[in-house]
């Protein structure tokens, strides 16, 4: 097929931890978004039998129509990429991946004469092991053999996609999602040997928020993940310096007192005298080593440990600036100054706001990382927040598919190129 055909039929698929973003190049600036999850209805349920519904797994916007009020709901609702990695034998997770990919391709094709399949560019976590690439290609092969919708496919790491969409060929991408954080130096190619992964993400900020809720007398709400997440988003703040911030908070409790409500409910949560606890939520994401966190660990809050998932070690307690420095120092010395100048923060776990009146003690993620790196003696650093973080990986996928020539075939050594199934 011609380069012109390929360029007009590039299709991006970003398998994020919470959301799946997909769509062809013709969508323009923004992709379609659905929650990256699948629901396995109870096939024995009376309603399922009466309705004659035979779907094994339901994905996309239809899920709420199938949800049953059952106690085993959490086990039927599968989020395959919760930690960025799917185990080889997690069959239900792979089933969701297949179904959601199939849904995406069906939504946009084929509608024109001469349609011969999309050039699919998928994006996985930087720490995804090789078997995930193999499994995903198997999924695409199966879909193409049944529906002829994939002319060729390729898979790229999410941080590379972020760097591409930001038009920066040399950079360090720090991607922090729900389950973990990946630090990936990029110099035209991802420097795979320098990738560092942290076993810490938005989920851990939720854990400390749940503990704060318990301490403030809302122990019953602390069990509901969605409520905890909403509370975290509304009250969490990042201190410039934790000790100064705690001192400020204890001396000025009225400035940090907050009452929030949960949308769509009558619930109101009030943090009056202990508003200073809000600083702990933001600090924990960047550095969980302060002694103030010890009391939470002692009382049973899970401490982020070092774990091995697939072939990758995820470090638990290392502070974020130290991880960035370690990652950059694994690259050639000549390259290091250029990497420090372009640090791109991406992902929902970096979206922290600075409330009015607290500018002296609170910072956003960019300033936090800058401050932490300066404390390590690095003054010439450039840190930026990814613009449109929700879309940047999908956009990178589209640029990649548009530019990489069709003649560049997939290489398992380089983990790049187009894989064709026909």
């Amino acid at each position: 097929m011609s380069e012109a055909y390929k360029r007009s039929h590039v299709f991006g698929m970003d398998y994020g931890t919470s959301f799946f973003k997909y769509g062809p190049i013709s969508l323009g600036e923004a992709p379609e978004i659905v929650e990256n999850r699948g629901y396995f209805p109870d096939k024995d349920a009376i309603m399922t039998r009466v309705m004659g519904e035979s779907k094994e797994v339901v994905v996309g916007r239809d899920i709420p129509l199938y949800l049953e009020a059952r106690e085993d709901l959490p086990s039927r609702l599968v989020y395959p990429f919760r930690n960025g990695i799917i185990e080889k034998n997690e069959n239900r997770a792979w089933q969701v991946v297949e179904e959601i990919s199939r849904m995406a391709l069906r939504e946009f094709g084929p509608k024109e004469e001469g349609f011969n399949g999309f050039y699919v560019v998928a994006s996985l976590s930087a720490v995804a092991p090789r078997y995930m690439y193999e499994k995903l290609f198997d999924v695409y092969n199966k879909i193409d053999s049944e529906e002829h919708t994939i002319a060729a496919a390729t898979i790229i790491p999410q941080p590379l996609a972020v760097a591409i969409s930001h038009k920066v060929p040399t950079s360090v991408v720090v991607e922090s999602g729900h389950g973990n954080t990946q630090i990936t130096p990029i110099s035209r190619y991802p420097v795979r040997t320098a990738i560092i992964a942290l076993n810490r993400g938005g989920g851990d900020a939720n854990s400390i928020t749940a503990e704060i809720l318990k301490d403030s007398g809302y122990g019953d709400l602390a069990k509901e993940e969605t409520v905890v997440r909403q509370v975290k988003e509304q009250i969490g703040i990042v201190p410039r310096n934790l000790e100064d911030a705690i001192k400020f908070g204890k001396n000025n409790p009225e400035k940090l007192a907050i009452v929030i409500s949960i949308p769509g409910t009558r619930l109101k949560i009030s943090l009056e005298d202990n508003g200073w606890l809000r600083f702990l939520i933001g600090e924990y994401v960047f550095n969980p080593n302060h002694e103030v966190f010890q009391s939470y660990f002692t009382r049973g809050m899970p401490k982020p440990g070092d774990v091995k998932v697939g072939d990758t070690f995820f470090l638990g307690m290392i502070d974020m600036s130290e991880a960035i420095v370690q990652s950059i120092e694994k690259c050639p010395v000549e390259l290091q100054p250029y990497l420090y100048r372009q640090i791109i923060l991406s992902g929902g776990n970096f979206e922290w706001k600075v409330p009015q009146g607290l500018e002296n003690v609170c910072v956003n993620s960019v300033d936090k990382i800058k401050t932490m790196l300066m404390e390590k003696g690095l003054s010439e650093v450039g840190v930026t927040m990814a613009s449109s973080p929700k879309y940047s990986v999908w956009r990178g996928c589209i640029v990649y598919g548009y530019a990489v020539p069709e003649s560049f075939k997939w290489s398992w050594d380089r983990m790049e190129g187009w894989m064709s199934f026909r």
Partner: protein
Amino acid sequence: MSLSERTLSRIEKFFSKQGFEPSGVPEEPDELILYNGREKVLVKIVFEEDADKTIVYDACASVLEKASEFSMVYVAVPRNLGDRVDTVIFMKRGIGLIVYDDWSIEEKISAKMLKKTPIVKNQEIVGSEVVERSIRRLESSIREISERIDSLEKAYLSLLREVREIKSILGKRIMIVEKPVEPSVTKPEETVETGGLPSFLRDNPWVEILSRRSEENP
């Protein structure tokens, strides 16, 4: 399509499910005028997610100014903003509030009927019968068209399969008599055209870098 255009079209779809269709050209680019044969509705959309609440109240003032020309008026705002605004003003003034996000659109407060088109009762009954007849006609046409599309789709797929098979047979025959065609290699000085493309593709140095991948890895 820009984000604001997509939001406009999603809100238009939301109303079309209730029988409304776009009608006339609005005065402002952030407005929609919709009509269902009886009621004329004005919707003003606030696009900025991090907008101040005052922008919402400005939007309310703007729709109230034009309310005399419409049966109902609405203001549509991003969900995070909609959750923060004071809804009393909407209820008191009869303005409808629509909240939207990337996944859903919801009518948080229904608009009050401000003005009804004065129609003599008999004419209304006759009119509604005509409308019902037209709807029935349209429904049957839609059914017919969708059946035709189904059968065309099936025919198209089977033809596509046949064409693929023929191509693969021909391809094998040609390979026997012809020399293999040299794969076209992009010349180093050749640049990839990115004009008229989305902003993230334009002037992106990666396009040039990635287009040389096959040369770097023969």
